[in-house]
């Protein structure tokens, strides 16, 4: 127990390993908070500025274009009229409008800069106008007596509703996964401490290791003491990090906060075990192992979607096994399946895999360390 507390004391005094594991998610969390906090609020719609050039008048169309509402009190378009293509293109280049519509009576063509959300919106509006117009024309020709009913029906908001079979999760923002990836990486940074633990128990890697090897306290006991002391600190740190995400960055994990907390603990467990394993199993200098360790948690985080959230989907198509064993992916997926889908089974599967990997790594380290003598010091 004495050594447990001393290991904790040491961790708190080294700062750097602890420091980065905490600072990293809090700092980047802030960036994400600013970005996705706003993005998540459903890309607040603002009127799309659109230009119109009238080659042949169509008052009804123009009126509709001007008056269609996105929602109560918010028009879909902001309409500017131009008398020449040159002027409209000039405005487009200056980003005053997203595109312009050439109106030739009932025929339209749209000129845009690129296909993005705004252009798609204009295009959809034109398509619908055109199709509705033709439909009304057909009905007028075929069943003129029913015209009124058609117009009433089209005008009314009533139609068959589409009801979402709501997924059990509460998370509606596609960006929350970046927070999860952040947490995953924070967990895996624990491998730095795990590495340190592994280096400081081996006689051939550190002087302290030699001294601890000649003591009558077994190596296993010493490793485990260090391991659990580090885990203890990490669990506290992760709790703190999560608290910052929840209370400062207002990340609402709903009822799942407890599960997410557990997940970060499991993640730290794997991170520590992985670091320990790397220190014990691989040959080479301390610098080399540290490099390897950085490579480990960066690659794992990358594959878990830290830089780009969709990578897991690409992997799922091409090499799904990575998604099943990569620690960062497992952490992210456990959280995501919980938050988005309310899927406790997936969460459990991911967590169990995660813990199994951690235990496996730990067993590898222990087996390797049982080879108790060194070839050279």
């Amino acid at each position: 127990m004495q050594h447990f507390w001393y290991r904790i004391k040491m961790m708190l005094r080294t700062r750097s390993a602890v420091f980065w594991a905490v600072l990293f998610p809090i700092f980047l969390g802030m960036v994400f908070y600013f970005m996705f906090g706003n993005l998540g609020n459903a890309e607040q719609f603002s009127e799309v500025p659109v230009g119109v050039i009238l080659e042949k008048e169509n008052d009804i169309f123009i009126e509709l274009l001007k008056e269609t509402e996105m929602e109560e009190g918010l028009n879909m378009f902001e309409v500017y009229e131009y008398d020449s293509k040159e002027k409209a293109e000039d405005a487009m280049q200056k980003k005053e409008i997203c595109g312009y519509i050439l109106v030739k009576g009932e025929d339209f063509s749209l000129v845009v800069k690129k296909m993005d959300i705004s252009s798609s919106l204009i295009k959809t509006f034109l398509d619908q106008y055109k199709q509705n117009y033709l439909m009304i024309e057909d009905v007028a020709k075929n069943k003129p007596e029913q015209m009124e009913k058609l117009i009433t029906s089209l005008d009314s908001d009533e139609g068959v509703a589409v009801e979402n079979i709501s997924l059990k999760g509460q998370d509606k923002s596609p960006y929350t996964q970046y927070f999860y990836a952040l947490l995953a990486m924070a967990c895996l940074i624990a491998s730095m401490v795990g590495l340190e633990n592994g280096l400081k128990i081996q006689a051939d890697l550190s002087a302290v290791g030699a001294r601890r090897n000649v003591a009558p306290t077994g190596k296993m006991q010493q490793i485990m003491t260090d391991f659990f002391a580090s885990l203890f600190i990490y669990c506290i740190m992760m709790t703190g990090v999560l608290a910052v995400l929840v209370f400062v960055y207002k990340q609402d994990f709903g009822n799942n906060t407890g599960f997410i907390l557990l997940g970060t603990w499991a993640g730290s467990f794997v991170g520590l075990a992985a670091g320990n394993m790397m220190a014990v199993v691989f040959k080479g200098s301390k610098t080399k192992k540290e490099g390897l360790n950085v490579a480990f948690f960066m690659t794992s985080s990358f594959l878990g979607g830290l830089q780009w959230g969709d990578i897991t989907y690409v992997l799922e198509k091409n090499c799904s096994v990575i998604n099943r064993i990569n620690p960062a992916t497992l952490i992210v997926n456990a959280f995501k399946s919980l938050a988005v889908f309310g899927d406790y089974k997936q969460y459990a599967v991911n967590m169990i895999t995660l813990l199994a990997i951690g235990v496996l790594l730990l067993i590898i380290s222990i087996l390797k360390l049982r080879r108790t003598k060194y070839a050279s010091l």
Partner: protein
Amino acid sequence: MQVFKTYFRLLNAYKGIIIMYFVIFIAVALVMTSNSSLATNSEMSSEVTKLDIAIIDKDCGTLGTALRGYFGETHNLIDIEYEEEKILDELYWRKINYVLVIPEGLEESLLNDNVETMSFESMKVPGMFEADYFEAELKLYIQKLTGLLAAGYSMEDAEEELSRLQSQKAEVSFASFVNKKQNDACTIFFIYAPYLFITLGMNGVGVILLRFNARDVKDRMECSALTMKERVAGISAGILVFGLIMFAVILVIAGILSGGSIYADMRFPFFLLNLFSMLVFGLSLGFLTGTVAGNNEAVNGLVNIVSLGLCFLGGVFVPQQFFSDTIVKVSRFFPTYWYVATNEMIGEMKKLSSGLSGEIFSQIGLVFGYALVIFAITLVIISSQKTRRK
């Protein structure tokens, strides 16, 4: 020369990490370039992306056939059993974007104008733009369908009418000043260059400078016969060559992606200049890191915070078109934002108008400006450290 050689000898010790960042960068850039629905070497098209849609027909009537026929034209229809767990899994891994369920009796209530009681059911990943888009399409279809039914059309006739109308679409063309290759692979690929330049700038320059700046090494060098000038020149040459290697790698990959055509493209010199500004910025960050970071661990920590922070805020990883006004206000403070914006402007230009060139050059200048400021700050820090040691 001695210092220059030492630079690369030290770099050699960190080659593992440097290679790793290269690989991550190349993986991010290539996967995103090839997966970006917009990126094609062919000319830009105005087609909307095809989605993977499943229509589960519990009603087994003409409505289901109609919907399948209609949406099968524009999307990929996926067959799947109605099994919630399986669907969740497919949705989770985005093998399906949208699941539409037609409940039993829906068609009948539709025909009897008794629509309030029944509704479609759907499953989708919340917040996913494509799914919302499809739902809007679906609603428009149903609106037209009910209209036609109200007008006395039979289901079959209405379906036929709507299929006929489906092809009636507004013609879309691109403005004359727009380069239709604006979303070619290279333009998209270049967006990710900041991630490489920043991570490797900080690792390849920062870590090495850290070694040169270590107290004992520094003291030894100061006692040596090398003049200050020679040392600075040696280190600068090392940084420069390292930077040029990164630059060359980017250009080679761009060449491969475009099949060589990018080198002959009129936009190429502008891309080059824009990339170079970012490279200089990345190196300047490395210079600063090497001076302020105390040890390797700090560099590793800083690299992640700075590179990811700048890239997310600059619109490298999440497209700027999704940014709200508030984010744009914040993002404008970061050079990566300007780099990405400039890259986009260059990508879509066809010829250089005076207005455009002014904007492009001033934005590139801004990035250089940032690099200069960081460089100056570093020098101030270095000189203040010197005075302190006296």
